[in-house]
């Protein structure tokens, strides 16, 4: 209505102004929703190439440390263009194909980082900055990874005192 009243010259109808208030309201609501989504602490996949398997479980992720296993990237002919890697704290610590050929249960690169994390947690505990450290680790493995690699990652975690191991999966539905 205000637009119709806002006439400069008598008899000439000016175009009505766009009401932006409702648009601002929509945006504000959307921002609140998205911020709430962030605040709910939902974990995300540490590498975009990891496609997690889907599961019926509803147990929330509790993790001190996250280990990612990315799949090998294949070219048009099915040849491996880029080998899959094991990631921890943002670093690639082992290549999957090399690990398969090495034929050893423990993964040295992963073992080294896990040892450092454990030592760091122990130092924090001594300093009184950390109440308890359970040694929880979550494995974010791609759905196409074979058990050979998962077995080695689990064995390495177990050997370094990370005894509570969980498999990260996508919630069904």
């Amino acid at each position: 209505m205000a637009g119709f009243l806002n006439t400069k010259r008598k008899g000439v109808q000016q175009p009505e102004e766009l009401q932006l208030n409702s648009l601002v309201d929509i945006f504000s609501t959307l921002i609140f929703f998205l911020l709430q989504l962030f605040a709910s602490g939902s974990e995300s996949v540490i590498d975009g190439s990891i496609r997690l398997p889907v599961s019926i479980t509803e147990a929330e992720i509790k993790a001190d440390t996250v280990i990612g296993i990315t799949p090998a990237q294949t070219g048009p002919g099915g040849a491996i263009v880029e080998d899959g890697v094991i990631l921890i704290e943002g670093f690639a610590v082992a290549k999957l194909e090399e690990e398969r050929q090495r034929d050893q249960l423990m993964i040295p690169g992963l073992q080294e980082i896990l040892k450092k994390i454990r030592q760091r947690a122990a130092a924090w505990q001594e300093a009184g900055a950390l109440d308890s450290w359970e040694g929880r680790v979550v494995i974010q493995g791609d759905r196409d990874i074979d058990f050979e690699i998962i077995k080695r990652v689990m064995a390495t975690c177990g050997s370094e005192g990370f005894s509570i191991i969980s498999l990260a999966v996508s919630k069904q539905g």
Partner: protein
Amino acid sequence: MSVKRFTTSNKREMDKPLNLIPFISFLSVVVSFLIATAAWNQLVQIEIMLPTQGAPSNAQNPDEPQLSLTIIVTEENLQIAGAGAALPPIPMKDGKYDLEKLSKTIKDIQEKFPQNREAIVAIESSIVYEKIVNILDVALKNGIDGLSLTPYTPASKLQRK
């Protein structure tokens, strides 16, 4: 020092509507950023016990017979074993694991041993992670939440090695 008087013309200036366009632009950028970085698929976890921890125990009731439910996953079939006995293997159905039959078998066992909440899943090294999760789901669905994973090599392949 000149003092600006509150005159009718000043009041008209203040009555002008607020320019919301820069604010909307800012909100658009924030919304786009939040949408781009939001985690849309909710991550959950399946807790796994290490084989040494996870070995089914009857420490609470030592008089009860130990079930030691084991689900053996090989490239060819699934098999359920426990307490020194093994059920006939569950063959593949249309090139996939027969999860329905596995579920039914576990359900029958759970009816006989309702106290049991633990199982060992013995897996051949070549089995793909997604298939393992599908089998763990079947166990979880039937009330088994104390799961431990352990490697398994079929006897036929051990001889070849």
